[in-house]
């Protein structure tokens, strides 16, 4: 077999210029596609990071049924068992208890439905970085009885730090809930929806307001590596029993994942067209390679080589040409993408503004996920195998006599 490899390898270099052009086309195709894929995957990672870090976390624990019916009657008792369980997982970096519900908020002359988020200020800040989003006033302190509002909500209600907000709603199991809270700060939340409706307050005050002491609607958990999400989720599901549900960020952000998938599909089409062009280039080379060697094939077959072996050699030649391009292309894209991985391309001006508002770093991020590379290699490999059909047919129907006389 080694002999056939040597023969195939030397054969492709018989016409150096043509082979160089062909492998160069593969090289640039791989480089371009890897660059594109890396950029796509990098931005998806960024979206996911942004959404995980701004709201959902990696994993959430709820009472069974809460995710489909988000009412406070579907809350659960935070009796310390969950804390001690989470402490057993070194992969769990932070967890933050939340009490989330809806009620009416009134200022002097406006009333509006709002979302109430009861949090432990320190833990929550480590996950969603609320304090960084603050643009007026200050962040909640431990035991604080004030509230923080989204900027659009504050604007709508015409209040700012120092003013008072009245909250009226329904508490646990139908009890009444009403209270007066001083406004401590205003945040610019990246999600426009939340920016219009969010009111944050200290967890204990929130539980008191809604007559739900020690009850939580969700426990938000961050792990040290996204890859750990599923195993930790499984482990938690197993330990927590039937009353509680454990949901990961993929289940919580299905819409985003769908958008990512459709965007990916679009990328596949673009890359597909690029690869088609390259594949036709390789096919052209293979057709020429076969055509100009008809006589030589005749001699080789006459002296006793089986057609099957000759076909193997030609297919090896095709694969070698493709793979030379792939290997050099991947080799060149690794340092390039490595550079961009650590030096994302910054956005400026309006685009940057928009990204910031949506909660993203204003930069084009890159990914070095293995798929960025092996997808290119696999695609070219498959294309070369398909192209290999041509010499199979050509050599199978080759008549030694005719070939010798050509």
């Amino acid at each position: 077999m080694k002999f056939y490899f040597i023969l195939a390898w030397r054969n492709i270099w018989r016409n150096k210029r043509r082979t160089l052009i062909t492998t160069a086309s593969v090289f640039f195709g791989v480089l371009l596609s890897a660059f594109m894929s890396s950029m796509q995957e990098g931005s998806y990672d960024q979206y996911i990071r942004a959404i995980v870090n701004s709201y959902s976390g990696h994993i959430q624990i709820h009472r069974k049924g809460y995710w489909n019916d988000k009412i406070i009657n579907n809350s659960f008792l935070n009796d310390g068992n969950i804390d001690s369980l989470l402490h057993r997982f070194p992969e769990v970096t932070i967890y933050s208890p939340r009490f989330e519900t809806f009620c009416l908020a009134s200022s002097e002359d406006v009333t509006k439905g709002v979302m109430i988020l009861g949090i432990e200020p320190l833990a929550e800040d480590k996950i969603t970085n609320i304090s960084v989003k603050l643009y007026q006033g200050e962040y909640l302190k431990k035991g604080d009885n004030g509230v923080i509002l989204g900027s659009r909500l504050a604007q709508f209600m015409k209040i700012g730090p120092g003013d008072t907000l009245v909250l009226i709603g329904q508490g646990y199991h139908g009890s009444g809930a009403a209270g007066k809270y001083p406004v401590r700060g205003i945040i610019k939340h990246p999600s426009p929806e939340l920016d219009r409706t969010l009111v944050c307050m200290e967890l204990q005050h929130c539980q008191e307001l809604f007559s739900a002491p020690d009850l939580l609607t969700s426990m938000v958990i961050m792990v040290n590596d996204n890859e750990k999400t599923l195993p930790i989720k499984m482990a938690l599901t197993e330990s927590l029993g039937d009353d509680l549900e454990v949901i990961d960020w993929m289940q919580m952000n299905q819409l985003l994942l769908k958008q990512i998938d459709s965007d990916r599909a679009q990328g596949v089409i673009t890359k597909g067209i690029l690869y088609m062009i390259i594949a036709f280039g390789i096919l052209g080379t293979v057709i020429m390679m076969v055509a100009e060697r008809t006589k030589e094939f005749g001699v080789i077959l006459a002296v006793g080589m089986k057609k099957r072996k000759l076909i193997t050699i030609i297919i090896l030649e095709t694969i070698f040409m493709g793979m030379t391009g792939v290997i050099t292309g991947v080799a060149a894209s690794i340092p390039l993408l490595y550079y961009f991985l650590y030096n994302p391309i910054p956005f400026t001006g309006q685009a940057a503004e928009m990204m910031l508002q949506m909660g993203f770093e204003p930069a084009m991020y890159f990914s070095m996920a293995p798929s960025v590379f092996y997808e290119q290699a696999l695609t070219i490999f498959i294309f070369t195998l398909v192209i290999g059909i041509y010499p199979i047919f050509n050599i199978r129907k080759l008549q030694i006599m005719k070939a010798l006389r050509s």
Partner: protein
Amino acid sequence: MNIIEIKGISKTYDKDTMPVQALNGIDLVFQDGEFASIVGPSGSGKTTLLNIIGGLDDPTEGNVLIDGINITSLSGHSKTAFRLKNIGFVFQSFNLIPVLTVRENIEFIMQLQGASKQGRLSRTDELIEAVGLVDKKNCRPNKLSGGQQQRVAVARALASKPKFILADEPTANLDSKSAENLLDIMEKLNKEENITFIFSTHDARVMKKARRIITIEDGKVIDDVIKDKIMPES
């Protein structure tokens, strides 16, 4: 001993469209150890005849028996295997694989036969020596003269220890000195190693070296002369 028996061979090309009768009722017998040439003007049917003897082409009528085996009736795969084992070929041009060195071109045939590495190496050395190309053994064909290339082709044809060698106008592209040199080597191999050669030519000087001259014209044998008494009568 008869190694080749040709019985009533005719060949018509393009039977259905524009029939060309290339061979017309050929009967011939070749014995082990012959050094025979087939001569005749261009278009007389020499290539066609050699191709049919070598199993590269099928006759329209008649049979070719090699060592008593009727090769015309073999299927494609067994014919290839038979050819590899029994028949050596030398063609007029484009004989060698351009990307392989002299050594590799010769070794390659034995590789196809699945010979052991040890056996291949010693046989290759022996053959390179026999055709006088020891100093060129690691050169690729494009570094050799036409005559040297044909000597490699002869060595390659011998590599698989075939029963006989068919050479279709091996000297057609060579100058007369190279042609004579090639014939000398073939003759030496014939005498010293008792290898049967059948070659076609229309070169008078090459013809003279042969011990049997078969003349064909318009697809028929018109003359068959055995020049000396070394060969037994057929």
